């Protein structure tokens, strides 16, 4: 079992406020919360704002369940970069006697994992993952490439924490671009600026900075240094709670990683480059609650208008 990250005093206090005010609902497991109506209304406002913005720029809407075929995860390289964050789905296979034994152990909260077999599914690690094979299956990209809005899908990260901004399951709104290298990079950079402006319109003191993913192990340190040096990952950061600002969105340039992995071809036969933008719905809501107060009814009028246009 992963050891939970301890919360700082202000993170713990913020979480208490959110639970006490009914914005979040406790589950007994760190990083897993239900949401009250006021929280969810704001989250849906953010979902609509992102969907509207992407649609206005020609995005094609695709939606996927929050599960990934295990073979796709295995092909993606995720288990080499982030083995510590992945969640796989196991299910019971056995006889009646084994089912009874499993229930006996489970009822006593003892280890019943020996009755569980790996299934063909894993929890969604990042909402953009199903997009690449789906687009690859269509054949070569049209000239200019493809822009997909994969929506605000549930994703899972196995990292229990007392920080309310570090959830184990949350909505990640992914926009994905596949196409010629220079177009993809330009799109990523334009969206970084657009995202910055979008968060500032919501009254958030957001800053754009280079970042790296939490790659696993010492090899991961090398990947992270490389990612930062070459500006492959940008983040929009806002102070919520804790010693450092929290990333509300990230803008990732994969170069030809997914293009090569899934055989995504350009119109001229070359390997497609890809980039994805991930907006964390819950983190944006938390930043808004922290900045403007726990009652969205009292937020500044322009912010409320962005989230629920007439």
């Amino acid at each position, binding site marked *: 079992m992963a050891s939970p990250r301890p919360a700082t005093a202000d993170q713990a206090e913020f979480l208490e406020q959110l639970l006490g005010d009914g914005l979040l609902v406790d589950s007994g497991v760190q990083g897993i919360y239900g949401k009250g109506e006021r929280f969810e209304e704001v989250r849906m406002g953010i979902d609509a704002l992102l969907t509207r913005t992407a649609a206005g720029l020609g995005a094609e809407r695709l939606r996927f369940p929050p599960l990934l075929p295990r073979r796709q995860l295995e092909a993606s390289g995720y288990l080499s970069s982030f083995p510590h964050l992945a969640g796989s789905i196991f299910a019971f296979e056995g006889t009646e006697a084994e089912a009874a034994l499993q229930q006996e152990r489970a009822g006593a909260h003892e280890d019943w994992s020996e009755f569980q077999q790996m299934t063909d599914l894993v929890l969604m690690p990042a909402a953009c993952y199903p997009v690449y094979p789906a687009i690859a299956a269509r054949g070569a990209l049209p000239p200019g490439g493809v822009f997909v809005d994969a929506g605000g899908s549930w994703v899972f990260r196995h990292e229990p924490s007392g920080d309310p901004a570090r959830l184990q399951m949350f909505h990640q709104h992914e926009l994905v671009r596949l196409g010629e290298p220079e177009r993809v990079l330009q799109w990523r950079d334009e969206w970084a600026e657009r995202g910055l402006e979008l968060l500032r319109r919501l009254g958030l003191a957001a800053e754009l900075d280079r970042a790296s993913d939490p790659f696993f192990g010492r090899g991961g340190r090398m*990947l992270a240094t*490389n990612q930062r040096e070459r500006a492959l990952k940008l983040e929009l950061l806002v102070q919520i709670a804790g010693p450092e600002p929290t990333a509300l969105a990230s803008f990732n340039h994969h170069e030809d990683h997914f293009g090569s992995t899934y055989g995504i071809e350009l119109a001229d036969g070359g390997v497609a480059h890809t980039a994805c933008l991930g907006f964390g719905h819950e983190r944006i809501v938390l930043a808004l609650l922290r900045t403007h107060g726990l009652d969205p009814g009292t937020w500044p009028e322009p912010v409320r208008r962005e989230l629920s246009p007439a």
Partner: protein
Amino acid sequence: MTGAMRIEIRRVLRDHARLPVDVDSLRDDADLFQLGMTSHASVNVMLALEDAFDIEFPDQMLKRSVFESVDGIARALDELESRAA
């Protein structure tokens, strides 16, 4: 750096760098990333070098420039050897 060590570096590159070219034909200063070594392959090269030479690269050496050529790797191994001496 002895010739034997450079031969060993090339063996590691042949087994782990997944280069689309013949490793023996490379110059010592050839840029392995430009030749097609991916970031993930460079991690495997790093781990295989640690095994082959029974060393551990310190954190400040875990970066792209150290592993970009046979010369770069040889320099890093030389430095680790002189520190250990």
